[in-house]
């Protein structure tokens, strides 16, 4: 097989892996949008906040240490213990539930019935707020997150695929972490589907997504469901935060993956969980392939910044509700 083609295949594989990570963030968006009609810009910052909290708990950092030191002139940094990863993840999940409760009760409960753009703006406000709080609590330096996930390239895969190409080809280079992320994403989606199909709360959630008033009239508590949905989005953000954090360190740029998830949503449709996955894969493969085939050789590179948006834009012109979105029916 020609080496160029094999490199292409490698690019596609890496694109698929990147797509899975985009899809993870997009999932959180879809959950909230379906259940409450809120277009949650803060999803990326939620992931950042979750990852920061996880690192903070694992390292035994004192929350708000910097602030406390500045006010009282003390010199505290760490409690001096290390929390095992599993326990830390559970604690972080608890923090995310608490956060979900706060977000709902202090913000969105007061905004029920407002126009979508107002809700959207509120989530941008929330994103700023959470980013500031995260930095104040845990400090804004870049942190490494190590929860024991495998790192580095998979040599096994590299050695066993090297025979496909000629002298120049050394086998597919794929990060182990990406493979784990894919596995986790698949498990997460299966769990979400099972939850929403077979549990009482999951069914209530789907009912709310269908029709708020009808759900209210059969005795479903909207407040509870919304807290639940924000908690779920928090868990998804935690998983995304762990994966991205383990890949590239926990830092501010983590919150920008939310922007990468937006074209994924447009492609897949704002209301479809399978859409988020398929959209993520298309965007992941599309932007890597475009960069490989056209961007880097002819356009000077860094096309990944905008390609996803332009692809989604062109796609939407032909199918305004996205791949799997509900058909938009307009009535006067």
């Amino acid at each position, binding site marked *: 097989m020609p080496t160029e083609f094999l490199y292409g295949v490698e690019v596609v594989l890496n694109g698929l892996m990147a797509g899975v990570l985009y899809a993870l963030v997009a999932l959180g968006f879809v959950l909230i949008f379906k259940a409450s009609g809120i277009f949650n810009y803060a999803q990326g910052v939620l992931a950042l906040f979750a990852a920061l909290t996880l690192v903070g708990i694992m390292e035994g950092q004192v929350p708000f240490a910097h602030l406390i030191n500045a006010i009282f002139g003390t010199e505290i940094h760490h409690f001096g213990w290390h929390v095992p990863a599993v326990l830390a993840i559970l604690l972080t999940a608890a923090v995310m539930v608490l956060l979900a409760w706060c977000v709902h009760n202090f913000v969105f409960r007061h905004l029920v019935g407002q126009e979508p753009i107002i809700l959207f703006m509120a989530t*941008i406000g929330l994103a700023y707020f959470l980013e*500031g709080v995260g930095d104040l609590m845990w400090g804004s330096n870049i942190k490494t997150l190590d929860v024991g996930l495998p790192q580095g390239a998979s040599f096994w895969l590299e050695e066993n695929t090297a025979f496909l190409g000629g002298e120049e080809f050394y086998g597919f280079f794929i990060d182990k972490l990406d493979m784990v992320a894919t596995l986790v994403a698949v498990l997460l989606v299966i769990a979400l589907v099972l939850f929403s199909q077979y549990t009482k709360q999951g069914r209530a959630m789907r009912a709310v997504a269908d029709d708020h008033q009808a759900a209210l009239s059969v005795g479903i508590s909207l407040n509870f469901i919304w807290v639940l949905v924000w908690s779920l989005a928090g868990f998804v953000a935690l998983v995304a935060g762990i994966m991205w954090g383990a890949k590239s360190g926990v830092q501010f740029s983590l919150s920008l993956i939310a922007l990468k998830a937006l074209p994924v949503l447009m492609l897949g449709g704002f209301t479809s969980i399978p859409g988020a996955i398929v959209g993520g894969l298309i965007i992941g493969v599309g932007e890597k392939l475009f960069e490989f085939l056209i961007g880097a050789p002819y356009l000077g590179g860094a096309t990944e910044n905008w390609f996803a*948006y332009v692809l989604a*834009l062109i796609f939407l012109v032909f199918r305004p509700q996205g791949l799997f979105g509900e058909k938009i029916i307009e*009535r006067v």
Partner: protein
Amino acid sequence: MLYREAGDFKTSYQDDSQTFPITFDRYRYYAVLAIAFGIIPFLINDYWASSILVPFLIYSIAAIGLNILTGYCGQVSLGTGGFMAVGAYACYKLMTAFPDVSIAIHVVLAGGITALVGMAFGLPSLRIKGFYLAVATLAAQFFLVWLFNKVSWFYNYSASGQITAPDRFVFGYQVTGAETTAVAKYMICLVFLTIAALIARNLTRGMLGRQWMAIRDMDIAAEIIGVNPLKAKLTAFGWSSFFIGIAGALFFAVYLGAVEVGEAFGIQKSFLVLFMIIIGGLGSIFGSFAGAAFMVLLPVVLKLVGVDLFGFPTDIVAHFQLVIVGGLIILFLVAEPHGLAQLWRVAKEKLRLWPFPY
């Protein structure tokens, strides 16, 4: 007592359809103009100009532009930063290509070029609606910033990738370049803002503005009563981008002087201007001013209180700024989703009845 229509008789159609029908409003407007043109230029210094007044004036133009698109025509746009970049780079290319032509003309032409680009990116709005459109405008934001970064023709092949405004003069006063005085910066922005606000105010009162509002309130119904959605949406994109382009050109040429595109016109700028019109009030020219003033003053005040008064380290104050900006936005939306302009309207209603409300 003073704020009344009563006794203010209109004897011609022209009187009847003027911008400020109430006498008090009219005099207040003249007073604001007189202070802005006649008094502030004599009091201004470099600190006030560079940290408050000039950014306020420029952001007001941008906010008016975005308000036309989002507030009046209902099309949410997150591409403001990208369109400001178009204005800045168009102005730069014009300034360096035709050094003999006045900068004022360049700025207007830059607005015109931005309007064309904006209309091109507005074309999908006929098919895509709501949040899908908002995300689609992000395509403009990221694509344009990338374009100005990668294609060296736009920055005249300079090694740093920056664009730097050459010295230019209007009526013998230097308005761009390093030696520009605070007064000159202030005055040129003020003139552009005054004209922009006048145009925008009258556009939104006229046929075009009513078409925009009809599209905003319900596009299908608007189509049925005979509003051409293609024309209405594209003119909204065009005019909006025109003002945003002018703001971008001024932001680069007059305010900053040298610009690196990703830093000055990134996605943060888009959000900043969107915050301005949300906090100020959607669909209100006054709201654009109020929102711009609010968002420009907030960090200055926070820095004054945090760093100078309490003596916190700057990084903590920077974090607090995020928390406070975010918190204030949420608080505002919960307390008054229609922005400062709504508070202003309520105040005016109350004033009309004061001191004897029924």
